[in-house]
């Protein structure tokens, strides 16, 4: 059979630039390479020698969409190294800040970037002509998330109010009361968004993923919990390196993360949801069931429904935190530098984000390691692509290419975080 190459110079509606190579032989996709060719950003190296207190502000710069995740994993890892635990109102406020980021990030992806795939529009602008209400809802909802970051983070993008030990300033009850009004409206908008996406047509496609997420005794996870999987993994963040490893692959400047014993795994909304369904409030569980989800979701195309469910949860959790808010004695706990190693795992919107730091007695950083969610999901994305593209090989090349882009957008990948444009080449031999 003659060989054929199809090229796409730019995959739309993902954060960053990458390319895709599909190799097809005898009616099967034999290899799908997600090629991330952004230059390495060397954050881990530039952290060396900096003061431990600088880590949340430096690492937040890795991503304009999920800076809170970087701040949270870094403060937890640093506090772990310093032997300090931050509890009470400060811990609750960290969850609140994370709620803001989930609302903002999930809403942007689900409605503005992902929904057009299901409704047959090239982008949200075209979609807005016939689905204006849904888009207006998303803008208002995103604004509610932005308000959380503005108030508690100091500004919406790259918040500046987070520090190791707590915050620089804690807002007043009156300020939180105004935010609560916005979040109440946000909660209703989020429910309407779940009901809207639940009616989309979803391909019949499931994969047997090993889900990996944090799990906490009482809460749906943000900042704290053990690292667990659907195949029995149950470890503390400090044991991350004994179970996971990062590998160099020739086609990507991002490292690919695998479970040492079993290979690929999945982090993110579907993993979090499937491992922690019992930790969602009863009304959110009921809403998920009404939206056609079971307690486990293995259809990556339905991840859009899971994201919107998590937005409802984040609005409710934020309201709960504000309702029970008691001002802390101080905006941060006092810290003394000491030599040590610390680990932190938190749940970024796109999945688990691991940080490890080694610090010297004077508080300077000796080593830093950061494993973002998109690195962890790369192999899983490639496996989804192999299977989904094999099922779609009869389609004309344009349709096949569309399907591949959809498979990638299921992940809300942040290619910028992982190492930007997706180019697609199909090699048929």
């Amino acid at each position: 059979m003659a060989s054929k190459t199809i090229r796409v110079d730019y995959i739309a509606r993902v954060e960053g630039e990458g390319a895709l190579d599909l190799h097809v032989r005898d009616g099967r996709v034999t290899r799908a390479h997600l090629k991330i060719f952004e230059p390495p950003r060397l954050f881990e190296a530039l952290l060396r020698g900096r003061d431990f207190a600088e880590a949340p502000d430096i690492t937040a710069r890795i991503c304009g969409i999920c800076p809170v995740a970087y701040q949270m994993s870094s403060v937890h890892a640093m506090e772990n190294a310093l032997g300090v635990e931050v509890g009470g109102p400060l811990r609750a406020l960290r969850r609140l800040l994370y709620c803001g980021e989930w609302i903002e990030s999930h809403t942007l992806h689900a409605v503005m970037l992902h929904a057009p795939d299901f409704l047959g529009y090239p982008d949200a602008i075209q979609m807005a002509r016939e689905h204006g209400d849904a888009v207006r809802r998303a803008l208002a909802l995103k604004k509610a998330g932005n308000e959380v970051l503005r108030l508690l983070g100091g500004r919406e993008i790259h918040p500046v109010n987070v520090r190791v030990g707590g915050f620089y300033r804690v807002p007043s009850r009156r300020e939180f009361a105004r935010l609560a009004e916005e979040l109440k409206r946000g909660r209703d908008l989020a429910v309407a968004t779940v009901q809207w996406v639940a009616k989309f047509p979803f391909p019949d496609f499931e994969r047997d993923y090993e889900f990996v997420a944090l799990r906490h005794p009482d809460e749906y996870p943000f900042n704290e919990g053990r690292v667990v999987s659907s195949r029995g993994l149950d470890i503390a963040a400090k044991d991350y390196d004994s179970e996971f490893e990062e590998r160099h692959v020739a086609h990507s400047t991002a490292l690919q993360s695998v479970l040492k014993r079993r290979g690929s795994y999945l982090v993110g909304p579907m993993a979090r949801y499937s491992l922690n369904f019992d930790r969602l409030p009863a009304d959110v569980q009921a809403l998920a069931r009404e939206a056609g989800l079971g307690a486990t979701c293995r259809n990556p195309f339905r991840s859009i429904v899971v994201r919107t469910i998590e937005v409802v949860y984040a609005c409710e959790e934020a309201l709960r935190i504000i309702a029970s808010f008691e001002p802390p004695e101080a905006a941060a706990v006092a810290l003394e530098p000491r030599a040590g190693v610390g680990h932190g795992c938190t749940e970024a919107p796109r999945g688990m984000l691991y940080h490890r730091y080694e610090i010297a007695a004077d508080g300077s950083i000796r080593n830093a390691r950061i494993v973002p969610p998109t690195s962890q999901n790369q192999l899983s994305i490639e496996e989804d692509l192999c299977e989904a593209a094999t099922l779609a090989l009869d389609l004309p090349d344009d349709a096949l290419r569309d399907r591949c882009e959809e498979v990638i957008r299921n992940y809300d990948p942040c290619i910028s975080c992982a190492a930007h444009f997706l180019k697609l080449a199909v090699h048929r031999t």
Partner: protein
Amino acid sequence: MRPGRKVLIVGIGNPDRGDDGIGPLVVRQLAGRVPPSIRLIARTGDALALIEDWAGRDAVVLVDAAAPGTTPGRVHRIDLLEEELPTDLSRASTHAFGVADTVGLARTLDLLPASVIVYAVEGVNFEPGAALSPEVAAAAEEVVSRIAAELCHLEHDCA
């Protein structure tokens, strides 16, 4: 003087990426040279936030870098009442939802202020950490003067 229309000027871009910094630079240079009634802000990253920024404003001026064209430093003035923002001029952003997308969306949803003027300056170098190219830096003064010259019209409808 009677109260005028509410005007917002937004400089869009990342000052740490070479010519992408032209928007924020123009806004810095306008500070102190425009009446206090004019709101000036710089924005990086999420273009969708512009819809919140211009809510309630009657007129908006956006200053942004344009992707490499033929003439670094060339200034394009686009009146969005009269024409669309060409997407190929504003693809310098690697973000998922750019300025042209945001303007298009706001137009569809009827969320665009009555008057929107875009100054797009052709850039040539968008490397992280790079300084503004000399041609682009030189264009800042031209953009500042042209905005200053049309402010009276935007705010008070004077000729």
